[in-house]
Structures are given as C-alpha cells and as structure tokens.
C-alpha cells in the first residue's frame, strides 16, 4: 500500500503520461547524454518505480561493479524514502532487494545473444518474473543495429520493457537539428523512446526526442535534482 501511494506520486508516472501510447511490454527506451549527467540515476529510478509496485526488475550492466550498482540503488532509495517520508522503510527496502537481480557482464564484447540467453534463463528456469529490464553501459558506438533488433524481438516475445542508457562521446555537435543524438539515428526502427539529458541553467532537464513514431524535441516538465539526483517535476 505504501508503495502504491509512493508510486502514484512518482515522477516516472509523469514521464510515462507524457509519452504517446505510454511505455510497456515490447518497448525499448533510451536515456542519452554525455557521461556523468544522470543517465544511471534515471534508469535506477525507473527500476525503483517498478520495484515499489512489487514488479521484479533485472538490471543488466556491462561495466560497473555490482557493489557500485547496488550503491546507486541504496543512495536513490534513501533519498526517495526521505523525500516521501516513507514509513516502514526497512520493509520496503527488503522487498526492493528481493525483487531485483543484477546481471553483470564483465567481458568486453559480450554477445547480445549471450546476454539475452542469461535473461531468459533467469525468467524461465530461474522463475524470476521480471517485466522490466534495465540495461546500463551498452555500447551504441559499435555497430549494433542487429543487436537492438534482437533486443526488440526478445522484448516483444517475452513481453518485457527495456530501458537503456547511451553514453554520448566525441566532439560537438552530438545532436542533429531535432535534438536526436547522431549515434542513435541508425537504430531508430528498434528504439521506441529516446530521452536526452542536458544541462540547463544549473539543472539537468529531460527532452523527449523520439516518442514512438514521432520525432520532435519536447521539453519534459522534469529535472534531476543535482543534490539528490532524484527526478522532480518542474
């Protein structure tokens, strides 16, 4: 019950309301920005939003150490709990932990096929009923159209939603005139939602640049609080 209330107030719900047709099974979404702007914070908050509703989440990471990922969850959970004045914090925390599995792929060049196989093993024989998959650290700078198509196909078949982070690098400009990151332009058929993060007057704002079949730069009424890294409404 506590979680329902918390979840209803969640800025993630605001985000989803802003999406035409919402977000759900079979969809792939991406948060894109340069390093250190707040992509992981956004991903973890999506995960926490689902976890508060007791929906299991798989967090796939390509680079970070497990303890590093856990500390992201701990930090954001603590900040959320204190912002929402959460009662029975320990109990909620326990359930969050219970419904989250971190899959870490250490080897460079880990094949998507292997990643999907592991997720499948966890969902099938592992009996872990996740519907949301967070993918942090996927390298969009390697040719990956085929990989993303596989993710998309898997998402549709298994009725999963996938949220990725895309770390932008190189010299400016990184975006085209519509605000789309150049690196993602080849993958538009597989990606349903693209949100970019940008510094704007000392805060980080979220722009919706691809919303299903529509490409348009729409400033979302959401920002990342620089202290707590929590998404808040503007």
């Amino acid at each position: 019950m506590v979680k329902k209330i918390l979840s209803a107030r969640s800025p993630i719900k605001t985000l989803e309301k802003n999406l035409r047709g919402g977000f759900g099974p079979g969809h792939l979404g991406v948060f894109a920005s340069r390093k250190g702007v707040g992509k992981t914070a956004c991903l973890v908050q999506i995960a926490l939003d689902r976890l508060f509703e007791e929906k299991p989440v798989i967090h796939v990471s390509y680079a970070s150490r497990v303890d590093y990922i856990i500390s992201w969850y701990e930090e954001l959970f603590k900040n959320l709990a204190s912002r929402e004045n959460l009662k029975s914090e320990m109990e909620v925390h326990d359930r969050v932990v219970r419904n989250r599995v971190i899959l870490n792929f250490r080897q460079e060049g880990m094949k998507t096929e292997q990643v999907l196989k592991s997720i499948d093993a966890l969902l099938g024989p592992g009996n872990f009923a996740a519907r949301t998959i967070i993918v942090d650290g996927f390298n969009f700078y390697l040719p990956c159209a085929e990989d993303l198509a596989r993710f998309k196909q898997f998402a549709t078949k298994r009725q999963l939603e996938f949220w990725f982070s895309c770390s932008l690098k190189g010299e400016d400009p990184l975006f085209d005139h519509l605000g789309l990151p150049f690196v993602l332009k080849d993958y538009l058929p597989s990606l349903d939602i693209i949100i970019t993060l940008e510094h704007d007057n000392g805060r980080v704002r979220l722009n919706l640049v691809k919303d299903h079949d529509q490409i348009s730069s729409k400033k979302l009424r959401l920002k990342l609080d620089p202290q707590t890294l929590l998404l808040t409404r503007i």
Partner: protein
Amino acid sequence: MNENLRRMRNIGISAHIDSGKTTLTERILYYCKKIHRIHEVKGKDGGGATMDYMELERERGITITSATTNVTWNEHSINIIDTPGHVDFTIEVERSLRVLDGAILVLCSVGGVQSQTLTVDKQLKRYNVPAIAFVNKLDRIGANPFKVKDQINDKLGRRAALLQVPIGLEDRFQGLVDLVRMKAYYFDGPNGEVVREEEIPPELEDPAWQYREELLDAVSLFSDELTEAILENRVTREMLLRAIRKGTINREFTPVLMGSAYRNKGVQLLLDAVVNYLPDPSEVENIALDLDREEKPVVLKADPTLPCVAYAFKLEEGPYGQLTYIRIYQGSLRKGEELYNTRSKQKFKVGRVVRMHADHMEDIEETGSGDIAALFGVNCASGDTICSPGLNYAMTSIYVPEPVISLAIEASNKLSADRLAKALNRFIREDPTFRVYIDPESKQTIIQGMGELHLDVYVERMKREYRVEVVTGRPQVAYREAITVRADFDYTHKKQTGGAGQFGRVIGYLEPFDGQYEFVNEVRGGHIPREFIPSCDKGFQAMLKKGQLIGSPIIGLRVVLTDGQFHPVDSSDIAFQMAAQGAFKQAYRKARPQILEPIMKVVVETPSEFSGNVFGSLNQRRGIIVSSIEDGSYSRIEAEVPLSEMFGYSTVLRSMTQGQAEFTMEFLKYSRLPAALAEQLMEEHRQKLEAGDKK
C-alpha cells in the same frame, strides 16, 4: 640484523579447492629434498600427498587440518603452513593466517579467481598478509594466465603484474620466460629437478619485453631509484628485485608467477620468489596486549635475547599425546625451560621441542624468534599465549564467528560413549567454532559449527580417529527471537510464606535494539535501592536464554527500568531478580516478538549454461539472487539464502550441473522468518513442551 632471521620465511599456501595446492606443496617438499618421491593427491599410487596427511583428507582429496612443515631453499629456512581451502573450515585458515608472514595465493589458470579465492583473499587482507600469486595448471586445456592476472587486478582489487610469461600453453607448455632476469627456463629430468637456463625464444622476445614494461610500470611506484633508472635505461636485476620486494611486503603489489606443479614446471622459480619477495619475520610488526597494563598494545621484537612470547595456533593429538604448534614472536624457547600460559595462568616446563615435517618430526633443542615449532605434553588450548615467567601478554584474540548450525549426536553403545566424550573434548580445544553442549530438556549432546560440512567432518573424525559410532539427528538451525515494538511492564513480585518474605516491583519498558542486549537504569529517587539494580539486570538477562516463542535465545533487546518499589525488610537480590523475570514475561508477548533465522551469503560458481537452473534452485530455497556476474563461459551467482533451506544443497547442485558448479556460504545476518514457517516452528515447540510435561 640476525642472519638466521633474515633467512627465515613463514608462509602459507592459500587457494581455492582443487586449484592444485596440495600437489604444489608436494613438489615444494620434493625440490627442497624433504621427500624423495612424488605422490599424487587422492592416492592414485596408494601413497597420497604427504601434506594431506589425515586419512579422511586423503579419501576426499581435500586438506582439512593445517599441517606445518619446514624446508630449506637457497639457504633459507621456510616454514610452510598448509591451509585448508573450504570455507566451512574457516577457523583453521584464520588461525594459520595469524601466524604467517606471507602467502602464496594459488589460482587455477582455467578457473581463475573463483568464489573461494575471494574468501581466501579477504582473509589475507584481514590479517595483512603479503602475497605472491601462482597461476597453476598451465598444462590444462583453456589455460590463460593473462586473463587470471587481469582477474587478480579486477576482482581482487590488487595491483598485480606478471613476473613470467609462459613458453607455450596447454599440452604445448614447455617452460617460462622470467621477466626479471630476461631468460628462458626449462625444467628437465624425470621430475623437473634440473632447471635449464636459455636465451628467450625469438618469437617471445617482443611479448616478453612488453610485459616487462608493464612490470616496471607497476613497481616503479615503490622505488625512486628504479624510476630514475628506467628513464636512463639502466635497470639492474637487483633494483627490480628490491622494488618488487618493497611493493609486495607493503601489500601494494602482487607478483604473478606461474607454472604447472603437476607437470613439475615453475615450482623452483616460485621458491626463489618466496625467498626474494616475501618478508622475513623481522619485517612484520606483531603486537601483543599487556594484560598487566589494561591490555596496552606492545610491539614485539624478533630478538632472541628478549623474554619469550609465543602463540599456540594449533593442537593435534598424536600417538605420543597432545602436540601444540606454536609460533615464537619474541625471544627464544629451549627444552627444559619454564614457561607461563597467560590464559590458564599456569607454569609448565618445556619437554620435547620438535620441528614438523607433515607426519614426521625432528627433535630440536632450541628455537628462536620468528620460528614455528611444536611442543609435546603441554596442556593448553589453541589461541593461548605462552610467555617467559614475568611477562603477562596475550596475542590479539582472533576473530571467532558464532556457530550457525547444530546437530544432536548420540553414541550407539556404552564403549563409544566414553570415547565420544574424549573426542569432543579434543575437538573443542582444537577449534573454537566447534561447540558442544547438553540440551537440558532432551538431555541430548548437541554439537554446533559453521556449516553442514564442518559438522560432517567432525562426525567422520569421531569414527576414524576415536572409533566412535554415533547416531546423528537432523541438523538444526540456530534460530533467534527478537521483539519488534516497545512494550511497557509494571510487575510486583510478592511472596509471603512465613519467615522472611519477598518483595520487589519493577516498572519500565522493553524496546528493540540494534545490538544484542542493553540494560538502562533510569530509576530516580531511590525507588529501587542501588544494590538491587544489578539484580534486575540479572533477572532480565536470565530470560534472554530462552524466548517464549520457540525457546531460542533473544537478541536485539533493550530494557529500560524507569521506576519501582521496594520493602525495607522483604526486598532482596532474589526478589528483584524474580520481579524482573515476571516483568519480562508480562511484556514480551506485547512487544510482538518474531522468530529470526540465519541468512547465508551463498556464492555459486557455475558454467553459464547451467545458470538458469542455479537461479531456479536458489529461488526455490527462498533465496534472494543479488547478482550474477558473467565472465566468458562462467557465472558467479551471489544470493542470500536461509540456512535452513541449504541442507543437502551440494548434492543438488552437483547433480544439476554435472558436477561442474560449486558453492561457498558464510553467515550474513539474521532475518525475520516468514509467518507460515514461524507458525510451524511454534507448533512444534508447543508439542515438544507438552510431550515434556506428560513425561
């Protein structure tokens, strides 16, 4: 400095199970001319490896108890303490680590850093033991020492660099290129005893120089001399040796050596590295606590002329009585000398002093600082400190974890019963994590330990060493009870049965607490006289031993005493103890107690193809899967699972993964038992009590 001391090393060999540690030890003994024939582990040739000396260990192909042995290499005296690899025997490892000055961390070149390597590595770090890594089994299919070196950096968080590169791998593994000497080495003769030095094969010249660069890069941090020499291109072997040694002893660098103990390749170079890079006893600071000066820390000096301070780290019952393994930290120890056990406060005379070689021993007259030896006929427990009379030191106590599992045992006949008592008495002296008590209700003998395998091994030892036939019950989990909310009490204990009466009234509350137990006295105005406050505390503490839900000990409780009442004649120590006990009974149920169960941190290493099944098996056991790290074809799955669900898991895991997966577990925390299971346990407890009443 004392030349003998400079030429002494106390080392351990720490490893993941099956990474070839026993074979390596065997080869070391052979090359140091301590044995004249090589046996293989698991007794293929009927001999069994020399260090793996207990029959039981031979049968299982694993090392359980740590035997120590002394060898000589290049005019250096090396004491090797063979440490067990399985986490269930952690106390053995920890006690050994306490007396080591350095360690060889053995890794398998195929499996690399595995779950147990992490545990062992953590232990080495906890006791600040400098280590060199040895990547073994280069002859195996899939051997990749370069990957293992990266894992030592990434997974163990060490700064490691290769000191050697292999000449060929798998079935083409021939020898090693030494990056310090920049020479190639081959191991000739039927048992690899002849080390042949050659020029580096031309095809390995480039990679060798490249890895040497990496090595120089890593160790130049520890030597300005070397940094300058690198810039001026005049690096000498001695400079490099000194920098590696400094980095290793400071525990900022881990040299990585390699070879195949089984194929007799690389072991002699490893021994050179032990001598070159691991510290002598004078280079390690050891601290004792002065019991006469409020346990003030005292730095011990490895000086043979000072009074003796030694630490008993292991006991063993041999055919000639109790053998006590000791490490001498300060002074020296002579046959016939009088010494003092600071725990038992007893003086004793040193009878025989021996130096151990696995199953054989050598009598010696005297032994000095830094050395490891064994004494005969000394009555002490492991962990005791032994000093020259006049000193009253204790070596810092080693960390002893609480046991998490218990098992009822019973001797099957009268003859066995006597021997059983003897065996148990011996085991509790040897191993502080092994405990024994008699259950006052069932009158059963209960043994407690760190895991199923831990207790299994002791039951086996009872059979083999003491010929005791025992019947065991089902393993029982050590549950706890804890309250969840504050509850007030106001209880008066009054008794008038002729003669002096009893009167005491206590008012206050119970509340949940982060630690084990706390008693707070807030009584003002002398409503309870000061002398009776400890009586109240004692009364409450008496109630902690058995909770009302299932009779398990209570943890996490604070008692706050706010007020009370006394009678000038009838109040007494016992009256207030009774009042406290009554108050506890009154408030406990109101404080909504719950049952807590031990949760284990379980780490499963499995080929990735079986990870789905492993996930499923952990889920089925009420486990929380924390993470899964995939690295090539292997997955390392970490989970939190209730201990009660883990019985027999090794068998399940083996059959599920065709014997290719393994797991370790250690106690993590206590957590609330789900309501349905709690209900079941309470029902069982009620029935047990009723049955007891009827009797």
